[in-house]
C-alpha cells in the first residue's frame, strides 16, 4: 500500500512533527467518548433501554396470546413488521455503498465515515432478522427453515443472503477496526477487567507490523468486492418476496432495482444523521468536516434522482394503463385513502430533498441533517405504503369478514415492538460508539496524507534506512 493515489494535496506540506502531532490529537479525540459518558449520554441510553423493554413486554404478550394482538388479519396478513423489516434491510445497504463502492471508485473523502456506515449496516441487519422472527406465527419452529428448508422459496433465499451479508458486514466492520481496538487495549488501561479482556482478545495481537497491515488491507480489499453483490442480493431478494406474488402492485419486474435504489437513498440519509449526531456529541468537528456533509449532500441528490426515476417506472407506467385491480390501488394511492401519506412521502422524502440539496447552503451540517431526517422518516412510511395498501387491494372483493379486517392500523403492541426494534438499532450504534472509536483513525489520517502504517513502525523504517 504505497500508492499515492489517495494522498491529499497537503501531504508534502506536513512535516514529520506535524504528522506526529496530528496522530496524537486524533487519538485523543476518538478515545475521549470512550473514557466517560456524560449525563445526556446516560439519559439517551436509559431512554433507548426503556423503549426496548416496553417492546420486549409487548412481544411477551404477543407470544402468549398469538398474533391476534396485532391489527393484522386475513387480508392485511402482513403489516408493520414486514414493512419495518424492509426498512431495516434498506438501511443496511449503506454499509456497502459508503465503504465499498466509494472505495472502489477511488473517492477519498468518505474515509472518516466508513465505520459509521458499517455499524449502521450491522445493527440494521441484526434487527431485520429479529423483526422477521417477531412476525412469525410460530417462532418456536424457526429451525424448520433448516430442517425442511426448500430452496425454491424466496424466504430461504432471504435467510441465506441476509445471514451472509451480516457475517460479511461484521468482518467489514471488524478488520479496519483492529488498529482501533489495539489503541483501546493500549490506552484504556483504567477500564473494568472484562472490557480490557475484550480489547485484548479482539485486537488479535495487533502490533502494527507491516505484515499485519498487509493482511488487513488485503482482507478489506476482498470483502470490499464481495460485499457489493451481497448487498444488492439482500435487497433484491427482499423485493422478490413481493414481486414473486401475483398481487396487483407487487407483480412488477421493476421491484429489485427500485428497492435497491431506495435503499441506497435511505441509508445515505441515515448516515448523514449519524454523522451529525456524532459530530456534535463526540466533538468530531475536525474530522467530520463540512466537506463531508457537502459531499454526502451531493451523493444524496444523485440517489434521490435515481430513486425518483425508479418511482416513475413503478407508478407512472401502470398509472398510464390504469388496469383493473392495480388501477384501483393506484387511485387509492394518488387520490384516495392513502393520498396524503403517499404524496408526503414522495414530496418530503424524495422530490424536495433532491431540489433543496442543490444549494450549497442546504448541504451545511444542520440543514442537511434535517433534510436527511425527513428522508429517513419518509423511507419508513414508504415501506408501509409498499406493503399495506397492496394487501388491502386484492383481486377478490373483501366481503363476509368483520369490518376491521378491511382496514389496517397497527395495534399498540405492533407499534411498541417496532419502536423497540428502532431503539435497538440505535442502542447497538450507541453502545458500539462507547466501546470503540467511531471514526477510523488510520483511514482518516490516510485521507490527510498520513500513513499510520509508516508512522507506527519508526523502528523498521530506521532499519531500512
Amino acid at each position, binding site marked *: 500500500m504505497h500508492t499515492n493515489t489517495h494522498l491529499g494535496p497537503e501531504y508534502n506540506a506536513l512535516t514529520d512533527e506535524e504528522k506526529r502531532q496530528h496522530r496524537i490529537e486524533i487519538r485523543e479525540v476518538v478515545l475521549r467518548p470512550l473514557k466517560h459518558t456524560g449525563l445526556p449520554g446516560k439519559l439517551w441510553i436509559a431512554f433507548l433501554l426503556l423503549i426496548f423493554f416496553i417492546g420486549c413486554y409487548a412481544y411477551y404478550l404477543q407470544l402468549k396470546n398469538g398474533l391476534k394482538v396485532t391489527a393484522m388479519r386475513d387480508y392485511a396478513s402482513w403489516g408493520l413488521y414486514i414493512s419495518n423489516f424492509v426498512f431495516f434491510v434498506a438501511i443496511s445497504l449503506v454499509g456497502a455503498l459508503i465503504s465499498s463502492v466509494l472505495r472502489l471508485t477511488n473517492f477519498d473523502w468518505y474515509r472518516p465515515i466508513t465505520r459509521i456506515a458499517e455499524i449502521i449496516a450491522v445493527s440494521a441487519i441484526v434487527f431485520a432478522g429479529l423483526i422477521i422472527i417477531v412476525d412469525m406465527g*410460530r417462532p418456536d419452529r424457526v429451525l424448520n427453515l433448516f430442517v425442511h*428448508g426448500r430452496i425454491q*422459496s424466496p*424466504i430461504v433465499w432471504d435467510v441465506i443472503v441476509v445471514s451472509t451479508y451480516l457475517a460479511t458486514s461484521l468482518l467489514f466492520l471488524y478488520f479496519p477496526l483492529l488498529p482501533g481496538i489495539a489503541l483501546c487495549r493500549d490506552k484504556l488501561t483504567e477500564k473494568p477487567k472484562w472490557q480490557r479482556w475484550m480489547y485484548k482478545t479482539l485486537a488479535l495481537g495487533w502490533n502494527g507490523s507491516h505484515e499485519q497491515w498487509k493482511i488487513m488491507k488485503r482482507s478489506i480489499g476482498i470483502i470490499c468486492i464481495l460485499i457489493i453483490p451481497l448487498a444488492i442480493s439482500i435487497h433484491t431478494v427482499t423485493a422478490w418476496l413481493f414481486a414473486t406474488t401475483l398481487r396487483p402492485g407487487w407483480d412488477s419486474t421493476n421491484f429489485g432495482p427500485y428497492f435497491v435504489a431506495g435503499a441506497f437513498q435511505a441509508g445515505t440519509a441515515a448516515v448523514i444523521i449519524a454523522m451529525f449526531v456524532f459530530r456534535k456529541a463526540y466533538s468530531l468537528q475536525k474530522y467530520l468536516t463540512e466537506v463531508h456533509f457537502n459531499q454526502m449532500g451531493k451523493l444524496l441528490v444523485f440517489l434521490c434522482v435515481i430513486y425518483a426515476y425508479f418511482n416513475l417506472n413503478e407508478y407512472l407506467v401502470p398509472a398510464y394503463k390504469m388496469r383493473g385491480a392495480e388501477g384501483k390501488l393506484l387511485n387509492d394511492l394518488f387520490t384516495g385513502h392513502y393520498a396524503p401519506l403517499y404524496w408526503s412521502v414522495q414530496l418530503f422524502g424524495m422530490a424536495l430533498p433532491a431540489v433543496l440539496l442543490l444549494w450549497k447552503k442546504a448541504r451545511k451540517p444542520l440543514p442537511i441533517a434535517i433534510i436527511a431526517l425527513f428522508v429517513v422518516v419518509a423511507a419508513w412510511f414508504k415501506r408501509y405504503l409498499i406493503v399495506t395498501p397492496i394487501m388491502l387491494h386484492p*383481486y377478490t372483493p373483501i366481503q363476509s369478514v368483520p369490518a376491521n379486517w378491511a382496514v389496517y392500523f397497527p395495534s399498540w403492541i405492533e407499534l411498541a415492538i417496532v419502536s423497540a426494534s428502532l431503539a435497538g438499532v440505535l442502542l447497538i450504534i450507541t453502545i458500539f460508539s462507547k466501546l470503540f472509536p467511531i471514526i477510523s483513525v488510520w483511514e482518516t489520517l490516510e485521507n490527510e496524507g498520513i500513513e499510520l502504517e509508516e508512522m507506527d513502525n519508526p523502528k523498521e523504517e530506521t532499519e531500512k534506512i
Partner: protein
Amino acid sequence: MENTNNMNNDRRKFLKFGLLAGGATLAGLGIQKALRADTIPESGKKVKLMTADGKLVEVDSNHMKHHIAEGSVTNAEARIGIEGKKLVMVIDLARCANARKCVEGCQKMHHKRAPVEWIKVKKMQDTNDSAPYWMAQPCFHCDNPPCTKVCPVDATFKRQDGVVLIDNERCIGCRFCMAACPYNARVFNWGDKWGEASDSTAAGCASPDNCSHNSIETSLQDKMGTVSKCDFCVDMVRAKKLPDCVTNCPNGTLFFGDANEDIVTNGEDTFRLSELIKDRAGYRYLEELGTEPRVYYLPPVERNFPFEEDKVPHNTSE
C-alpha cells in the same frame, strides 16, 4: 358365522391398515411391540395375522378393533394423495341463492365458527352495468399453485390427486402463502382456538377415528400461529362421501368429482365434467393469472333465483 364374518372384515381392514400405514418396511415384531405399548387392556384372545411383508404375527383382538380406521392416514400418505384421482369442483352460479349453507356445513364439518370461513359466498359484479350474482369461493386447489411455491418449509404442498393441503405441525406462520394466494383463500389462526367451534365433539367427522387422529387430511389439527384453508374434504373422499359444502347446499350449486373419471355430482344430479364445462361454457376465475384452478364456474345465466341483496351482514365479529 357372523363372528367369523366380522373377524374377516376386521382382518381385511387390519391388513389394509398395515399396507397403508406400516408399509413394507415394518417388521412384524415391530407392529406387535407397538401394539403392546397401547393402553387398551388385552382380551387375552390372540389372532394370527399376516403382515404386508408376509410375516405371520399374533395380536390381541382388542387391539385390532382399535385400528379400524380408513381415515388414519400417515403424513407420508397424506402428502401423496388418493391414488388415481384428480379431484375437481364445479360451481353453478345460476343455482346460487346466497343461502350460505355451504359455509355453515363447512364450519360444522371442520368445527369452525365465525370469523373462520373456508368457503365464502361473495357478491360479484363484473362491470357496473352487468347483473350482480353470488359466488361461492372455496380454495381453488390450483394446478400451478402460487402458495406452495413460496412456502419455505414445504408445510403446504400439492398432491397427486390435485389437492393442496397444509401440515399445521410444520407451518412456521410466515404467511407468505397468504400473500402469494391471489384469491385470499387462506386463513390464519391468529389466536389460540381461533374460530374453533366450542362443541369440538366427534360429530360431523367422516369417521370418529378421524377426529382423534391427528392427520394432515382431517384438518382438525389447526394450531395457533399457522395457516389453514379449505382441504377439499379429502378425509370425506376417502370415506366415499361428498364434502359438506356440496351436500349442505339446498340448491345443488356445488358439484364435486373426479376429473379422471370425468364425473361430477352434487349428490342428486351427476354430469360428465367435460360435457358440463363444454355445454354450459364453464370457466375458471381469473384464468389469466395462470394458476390453473381445479374449481370451475358455470356462468350465472338462466338463473334459478333472482339476485337478492343480503338482508343482514354476515360474519361481522371475531
